[in-house]
């Protein structure tokens, strides 16, 4: 599977070699930060857990005493008070259990939700490079499955583990108190349990990690094939996608089974050792009883207590598995948390006000290369956009136009040189306020399956009806009023229930609504017919009058919007000037934008 390994190695940035145990444990430990707000609740919870252990353990000795005392003696009048005590304790035990469970899940759910919100917030901040590289399915599996695992561990596994440890300790103490020689047998059985448990940790952790990663791959495959359903159907590649999915799903199955095989080695031993220990106790206990060194009642109580040990020990395999899964889950989650947003506020960055901005945008020897790509896309761009001026950027496919216009709003940061707004390096401005002043509309209309209004007001939640109307008019997007519920109509995912041109106009209107000081439009009219394009251009020209604008153009017709045109060629601005001037002075420009040469070629 050449293709597949390729996809794996570069598809997601999470490495294939699962992290080692120590970091996994640390990462789980780091989650305590999210527990802090629930300190009081957790305190109450642990008190309840403790009470519950005590109430649960207090009963068997009483039962033993009832058998040994009143029942053996045949004294009913002494039996029922003892039973009444047992009954009361039982009721208390049940009640405490109820309250504890209730508290436990409520708190765990709250913590899970907090973690999810925090993870989401972090993801929002991460730069586009990160999002390009991570499949949505991988992120999704972290936000859902992994957090679920962590929650389940905190709500179930951990409490269970601690309850078990508490119970085991108390039971052992009781056992020691009843008959120390027998107790030693029970304690000795802990040694093999410990050894097996250690091996389990070593092997299970990587297996769990492998499975969780693969489950992210499967989600990614599912997501991509749903999002790309049109492309798949258009080519009839459903069966191919299914067979690719099959490969991923099969791998998931294999990894799941592998994990279980590892688990089976130790789980099976746990129960067996515990019950063998019980047998040994019975035999020796019987001998002690026969020799008169122990009463039958004591032996019964002893064995009953030890039986109570059986279940926690048998279940400890399961608990350990949960713990391991929670550890790998925490690892995967922290992989995201530990990725620093590449684009952040510099210390001392200041805010800019829309009203204070003049709008002079200057590129000074701007260089840019993508992280893992040696090619320098921009190799020293110098360009000045005067306040209120509209500059068009022209250039060949892949020449770096989109890259260039992504810089003013800091969707990417230049690797060399600087960009200034009214003389200030934009990196010295607070990111949020910068993006308030500079608005960028992309080549693809990124629409969300929400109401038209929500989509329009994306960059300016406070926009009123009038603002929206105005923007809709400029973008010639009046069709929105004809939708079944007008602006309240939900548009389909990615706006796919609209036509291509409708999507683009909506995206344009969205940028216009913001009324920024600097407006950046990347090829905003490519999906429009000639007639509509002209109408939009006319309306847009008015908006652009007071706005500094940078517009990527492909067609000569769109150039009309601009005061000047800059030609981006081989990473530099090769020529700047009015369209007509450049048509005469720059052969490269003619090559990119002239229709005449087309006739020649044809």
């Amino acid at each position, binding site marked *: 599977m050449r293709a597949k390994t390729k996809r794996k190695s570069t598809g997601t940035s999470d490495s294939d070699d699962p992290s080692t145990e120590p970091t996994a444990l640390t990462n789980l430990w780091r989650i305590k930060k999210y527990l802090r707000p629930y300190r009081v609740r957790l305190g109450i919870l642990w008190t309840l857990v403790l009470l519950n252990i005590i109430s649960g353990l207090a009963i068997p000795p009483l039962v033993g005493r009832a058998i040994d005392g009143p*029942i053996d003696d045949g004294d009913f009048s002494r039996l029922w008070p003892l039973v009444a005590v047992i009954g009361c304790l039982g009721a208390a035990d049940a009640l405490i259990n109820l309250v504890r469970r209730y508290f436990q899940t409520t708190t765990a759910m709250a913590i899970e939700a907090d973690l999810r919100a925090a993870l989401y917030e972090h993801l929002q901040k991460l730069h*586009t490079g990160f999002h*390009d590289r991570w499949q949505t399915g991988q992120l999704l599996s972290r936000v859902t499955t992994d957090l679920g695992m962590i929650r389940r561990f905190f709500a179930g596994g951990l409490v269970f583990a601690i309850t078990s440890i508490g119970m085991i300790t108390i039971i052992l103490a009781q056992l020691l108190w009843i008959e120390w020689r027998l107790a030693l047998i029970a304690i000795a059985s802990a040694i093999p349990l410990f050894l097996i448990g250690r091996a389990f940790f070593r092997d299970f952790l990587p297996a769990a990690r492998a499975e969780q990663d693969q489950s992210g791959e499967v989600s990614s495959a599912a997501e991509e094939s749903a999002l790309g359903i049109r*492309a798949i159907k258009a080519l009839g590649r459903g069966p191919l996608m299914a067979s690719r999915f099959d490969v991923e799903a099969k791998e998931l199955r294999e990894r799941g089974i592998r994990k279980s095989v590892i688990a089976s080695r130790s789980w099976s031993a746990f129960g067996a050792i515990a019950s063998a220990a019980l047998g040994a106790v019975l035999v020796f206990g019987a001998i002690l009883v026969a020799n008169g060194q122990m009463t039958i009642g004591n032996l019964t109580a002893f064995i009953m207590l030890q039986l109570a040990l059986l279940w926690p020990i048998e279940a400890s395999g399961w608990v350990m598995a949960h713990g391991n899964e929670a550890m790998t889950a925490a690892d995967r989650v922290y992989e995201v948390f530990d990725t620093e947003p590449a684009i952040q506020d510099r210390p001392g960055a200041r805010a800019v006000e829309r009203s204070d901005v003049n709008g002079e945008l200057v590129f000074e020897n701007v260089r840019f290369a993508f992280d893992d790509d040696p090619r320098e896309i921009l190799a020293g761009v110098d360009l000045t956009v005067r306040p209120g001026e509209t500059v068009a950027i022209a250039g060949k*496919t892949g020449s770096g136009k989109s890259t260039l216009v992504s810089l003013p709003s800091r969707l990417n940061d230049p690797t060399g040189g600087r960009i200034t707004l009214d003389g200030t390096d934009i990196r010295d401005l607070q990111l949020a306020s910068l993006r308030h002043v500079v608005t960028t509309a*992309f080549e693809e209309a990124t*629409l969300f399956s929400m109401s038209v209004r929500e989509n329009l007001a994306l960059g300016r939640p406070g926009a009123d009806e009038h603002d929206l109307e105005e923007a809709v008019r400029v973008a010639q997007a009046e069709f929105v009023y004809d939708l079944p519920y007008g602006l309240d*109509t939900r548009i389909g995912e990615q706006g796919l229930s609209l036509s291509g041109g409708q999507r683009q106009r909506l995206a344009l209107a969205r940028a216009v609504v913001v009324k920024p000081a600097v407006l950046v439009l990347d090829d905003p009219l490519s999906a429009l017919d000639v007639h509509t394009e002209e109408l939009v251009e006319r309306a847009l020209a008015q908006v652009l009058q007071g706005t500094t604008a940078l517009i990527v153009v492909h067609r000569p017709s769109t150039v009309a919007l601009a005061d000047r045109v800059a030609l981006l060629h081989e990473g530099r601005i090769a020529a700047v000037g009015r369209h007509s001037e450049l048509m005469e002075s720059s052969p490269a420009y003619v090559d990119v934008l002239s229709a005449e040469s087309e006739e020649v070629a044809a």
Partner: protein
Amino acid sequence: MVVQNDKHASWRGRSESAEADRTSAELEDEESIRQLRTASRKLLGSMMRPHKRSIWFLVGILTVQVLGSMSTPILVMFGIDHGIPAIADHGDYSVMIGVGIAFAAASIIEYVCVRLYIVQSSKVGNTMLYELRKRIFWKFQRLSVAFHERFTSGRVTARQSADMESIRELTENGVDDLVMAAMNVVTITVVMLVIDPLLAAVTLLTFPLMLMLGRWFSKVSAIAYRKARETVAVLIVYFVESMGGVRAVQAYRREDRDRELFSGLNTDNRFAQAKGHQQNAFMSGGMRGIGHLATVVLLLFGGWQVMQGNTEVGVLAAFLLYMKRFFDPLNELVQFYNVLQSATSALEKLSGVLDEEIDVPEPEAPQKIASPRGEIRFDGVGFHYREDQQVLPNLNLRIPGGQTVALVGATGAGKTTIAKLVSRFYDPREGSVSLDGVDLRDLSEADLRANVVMITQENFLFNGTIAENIELGMPGVSRERIVEAAKVVGAHEFIEALPDGYDTHVRKRGGRLSAGQRQLVVFARAFLADPRVLILDEATSSLDIPSERLVQRALRTILADRTAIIIAHRLSTVEIADRVLVLSQGVIEEDGTPDSLIESGGEYATLHRQWADSLV
């Protein structure tokens, strides 16, 4: 759908039907809930059927295991009642040694059984999941574009991730305990009845209480878990979409609002999930209470019986031990009940998907096209997406094989819609679309796709390398053919310049390429597919003029003997067409060769003039 339609209505917006987000089986009235139940049970049955043997084998192992662990109290009882007296009275250790050996044997049996069980059950469980995954995936692939449009990719993902996950959880750690507990109940009951019917009868009096509790829980929690499956799906839909559009979120500083909406959904989900678990807490407490009640009753009545001399102390002690053995696993099991309920709701959702009708169905008796010419006909085709908005009122059109037709018209005129009808993304509401005289509805999916390929307006690249993306046009072709296709459309040059050439990974949705480069890759893909009928929907909109020119030249040669429908706003593309159709609001206004239309001075002539003017 409380979650979406009330509280968040304002931002989510309204859509035609309130049920838009669900499969048709997921309505909320009593009747459909019952149907869903049945369907999910059927689904479970069909999942298990192929593994009947393995499942019986597993049940066998579990039985042995339960019997093995059952023996513990019996051995204890036997040891106390017979082993000790034997030693005390006669110094006879043989009974006790026998008990010891039996204990050792029981431990070994337990070891083997548990180990075998875990491995086997994981095999069966994972295989069942795998088969289910495949079925669901394939079903989603077959469902129509219209379905996907309303269901959204997020929900498709939710069904295949979160819902699957809750079923996985069940197969992973619920079932055996459930079965064990059930067998426990049965065997312990039987053993108790055998040892002392009267004591057993009294103890069993507490069972109806347990049943009632279980009934109550499964009833209330079914509602809670159903809701929770939906809230998590909505959350995932939102997550997937906003992560897909994170660039826009950042560029428009929408983070705060976005977070607010997400956290609203997150909180909804939190409470919905917590609800079932909270109900479970009541069950857990209740079960414990019942367990203690049983002990109390047993002590009082059993103690009285012992005093009356009707039974022995050892029997009572064994009974008490059995009670513990009985309730301890049950108490822990209560938590798995959660998992079970959650998985049941997930199964319901999935069975809803599997039962969803495909509204662009495969024909039962597909017709063959002997030698495809590529003739396309629209006969009285009427089409609308929404009842109130006719997109194509009545379209009659014949495109002879080999003709290149350009479709022009204002945005929203219905050009893409025509293309989608030819690719059978939708079926016409009225009339028929046919290829070489065969109604598309009578053509098998494979035949249709072999003959008709469309490049959609959204250039979708898949996660993978450039070569893989081009290869999608014709899976399995050699690298040479891929390179050749790229050369033809003029993509070779830029691909070679990438760090890994054709093996460069394009990243999510092709994020590593520029818009024009993406378009070229998609173009190369379509060329490789080499169909009889090629539909290009705005296939050159993001290209610069030189690239477009190159593509144009390629098109000229390639389309010579092919049927092509070209949709374009740039009239330069139109010039290679044999025939131009001007579409306005779904009606063909003009039809003729480009030159004749320019001469006739109609709509096209105007457009052409405008366009020519714009070029200077």
